[in-house]
């Protein structure tokens, strides 16, 4: 699949040997089915069964995207009308800024970034538009985002992930600030006149950081292809500025690893010697964010990192409390939606089950 996306030749014999169902499942898991379908349709050498299955699934993606696009346009217009400066970010932004068509960039939700000071107003607006907030664990010290779902006839039409900080782990707390991202934002006319997204440089930094910070060992082709697409649009001076940004925010190791992986898979054009340029200022200690590159970390290590990154013991205590005692509504919904069991029992069960998960290394 990576070879297809990179535009390399794939022998028809290879395609003849694949199981269409399995191939489509893998393509969906990696978020690249519409792109792969498009590439294979252009090649015209795809076995009929596989081509038909891909075409049907790709049409489904178009329909899903049409529904999502209508809802997202309405949402962006409403934010704009209410004077809330929201930024469309991550996959939802790239779909309109870097992909030929938005349905070629599948996504489960639309990520929207707002200033923390606008959280309440944004919540009220979303509820007025018919979006329901999802119950979730943790507080603002663990999660800086909240999903909202718009349903019609019981089915989810649009999921909005409302962020007031783009990367949750504390090691990244100073990496991307809303005001800075908003100041450098660009219009997204392909979505609608009021829509704004991130500058290519910020988008690339986030595309590199987000999968590492939030998804640890899970490598999905679409995240790496995002990096490839953004990188393809950067020119000489942009790269130097990107290098400076990464050094300044202490995410050089992550950005470098992500770009190298994209280049390995898609021949992403990264300038030679980009990372050899001297970073501004004097030599510094190792980047705390670099720890996120270690493979197969236990969840407990991630939480410990988070505790290390907290600003003082008061914050640490709040974080521990948030991990151990999530809101009662969350406990009921997740652990016993229709059971009268007392909350104490549910917290105890979570602690026992959770402890083994936290200490287990990902397989």
């Amino acid at each position, binding site marked *: 699949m990576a070879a297809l996306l990179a535009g390399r030749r794939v022998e028809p014999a290879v395609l003849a040997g694949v199981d269409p169902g399995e191939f489509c499942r893998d393509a969906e898991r990696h978020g690249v089915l519409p792109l792969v379908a498009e590439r294979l*349709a252009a090649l015209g050498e795809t076995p009929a069964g596989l081509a038909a299955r891909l075409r049907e699934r790709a049409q489904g993606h178009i*329909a899903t995207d049409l529904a999502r696009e*209508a809802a997202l346009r309405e949402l962006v217009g409403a934010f704009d009308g209410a004077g809330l400066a929201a930024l469309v970010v991550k996959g939802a932004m790239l779909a309109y800024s870097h992909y030929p068509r938005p*349905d070629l960039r599948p996504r489960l939700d639309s990520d929207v970034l707002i200033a923390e000071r606008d959280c309440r107003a944004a919540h009220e607006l979303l509820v007025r538009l018919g979006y329901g907030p999802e119950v979730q664990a943790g507080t603002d010290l663990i999660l800086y985002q909240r999903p909202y779902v718009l349903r019609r006839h019981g089915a989810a039409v649009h999921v909005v992930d409302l962020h007031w900080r783009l990367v949750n782990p504390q090691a990244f707390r100073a990496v991307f600030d809303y005001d800075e991202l908003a100041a450098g934002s660009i219009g997204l006319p392909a979505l609608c006149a009021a829509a704004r997204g991130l500058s290519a440089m910020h988008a690339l930094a986030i595309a590199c950081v987000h999968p590492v910070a939030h998804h640890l060992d899970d490598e999905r082709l679409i995240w790496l292809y995002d990096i490839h697409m953004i990188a393809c649009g950067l020119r000489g001076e942009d790269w130097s500025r990107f290098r400076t940004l990464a050094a300044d925010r202490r995410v050089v190791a992550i950005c470098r690893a992500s770009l190298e992986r994209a280049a390995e898979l898609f021949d992403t054009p990264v300038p030679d010697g980009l990372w050899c340029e001297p970073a501004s200022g004097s030599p510094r200690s190792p980047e705390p964010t670099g720890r996120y590159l270690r493979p197969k970390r236990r969840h407990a290590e991630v939480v410990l990192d988070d505790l290390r990154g907290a600003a003082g013991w008061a914050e640490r205590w709040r974080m521990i409390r948030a991990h151990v005692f999530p809101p009662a509504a969350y406990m009921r919904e997740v652990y016993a939606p229709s059971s009268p069991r007392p909350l104490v029992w549910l917290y105890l069960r979570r602690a026992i089950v959770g402890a083994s998960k936290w200490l287990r290394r990902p397989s």
Partner: protein
Amino acid sequence: MSLARAEVRAVKPEKVVLRMVGNETVLLNTDTGRYFALNDVGTQVWARLMSEASVQAACDALCREFDADLREIEMDVDQLLARLDAEGLVEIRRVEP
């Protein structure tokens, strides 16, 4: 069709959104979430239906375009309109005098 083709025209309802991809078109009813994919011929038929003043005018134009039998074209267009209508993807309106 209960009314003569010359007396009606096909209109895309507001709740319907569409996207053309290559020669194909995907139509979505945003109220029901139901969608319908038109192949290249279906896309040409849709384009004619949307641009001509009546269903009959669309059939006549398609007849010239495809150099095909008008009766066959009319039957195919009726069939397509019936399917789209059943999914709420098109509205059949009386032509304004």
